[in-house]
């Protein structure tokens, strides 16, 4: 591999890592924003104990 190709590969790798890092940051910010500091319980097919009537 020529020196020029090696340098290009290094640049491409750095760009890939930067983009990957950006995705991670955006994902982390999204999670924090959506959770608003509290646990979420989505309206999906999972049993939500908090909606069950108390047995008493």
């Amino acid at each position, binding site marked *: 591999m020529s020196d*020029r190709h090696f340098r*290009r590969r*290094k*640049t491409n790798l750095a760009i890939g890592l930067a983009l990957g890092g950006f995705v991670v*940051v955006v994902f*982390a*910010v999204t999670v*924090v924003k959506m959770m608003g*500091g509290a646990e979420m319980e989505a309206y999906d097919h999972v049993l939500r104990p908090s909606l069950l009537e108390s047995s008493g």
Partner: protein
Amino acid sequence: MTDISITDQHHGDAEVGDFFALMKPRVMSLAVFTAGAGLVVAPAPVHPVIAFASVLFIALGAGASGALNMWWDADIDAVMARTRTRPIPAGRIGRETALTCGLWLSGLSVAMLALTANLLAAGLLAASIFYYVVIYTMWLKRTTPQNIVIGGVAGAFPPVIGWAVATGSIGPEGVLMFVLVVIWTPPHFWSLALFTSGDYARAGVPMLPVTHGPERTRSSILFYTVALAPVSLLIAFTSIGGPAYLALAVVLNARFLAGAHRLWLRRSDDAEADGHAREKAFFRASLSYLFLLFAGLILEAACRAGGWTVAGWPVLF
């Protein structure tokens, strides 16, 4: 794939480090530190992920400003010894690439800060980029010896942006941090210009030592250093100040004022004779002055978080 596309390029292949250098990492690190300080000392808590992402996007905005500055100033950077090894004059990155990088990073950083923090912080970041690139770089830098006095405003935005990320407002503390950096900028830059004035003269940049001479520059440095002291001391009596910061500010101002006074007493012949040793020392001292003052504010914030406060400490506003 052939190498034709590569060999046809006017500029050599840029390496990762060249793109990093394009963003002026030293300026970026100061922006990161002061923005982080503004965010940490603010009275509103910020989630660590939001804080990290906000500082990252502020850093990207500062980097974008640096790239756009290098795009516009490529002609004078090529003339000055201090800047001729930068990526564009050295031929490692083309001007159009720098412009593209700068514009994309500007848009990305402002949009992402708006989504991550709030519109005020994003608006301030956009204003700082506009001010640095258009007002300072394109207009003031080549037209007036007061370029860095007015242009210093651009570098003063980061602590206010950090404060706005946390509080969603600006507040008197944010304004004082802003004024502090604005007044600090002239002594910082003029001390640098005193030992690089030949460079600026060759490039045709009307820095104060070039247009008004070193003696007038030394007086101006002393004037702004004197003006800096009350502003930095006043911060001690706001909600972000305290006794530890006050003690530190007194020591730092005494040291900085003594340095400015020694510089004022100098004659140009002495400066030439010792290779501007005192000017270089003052330039380094200006960096540690600002760094330590903001570190003092962070220390006060840590003390408040730990409940170590002095009862009855006067808080003026």
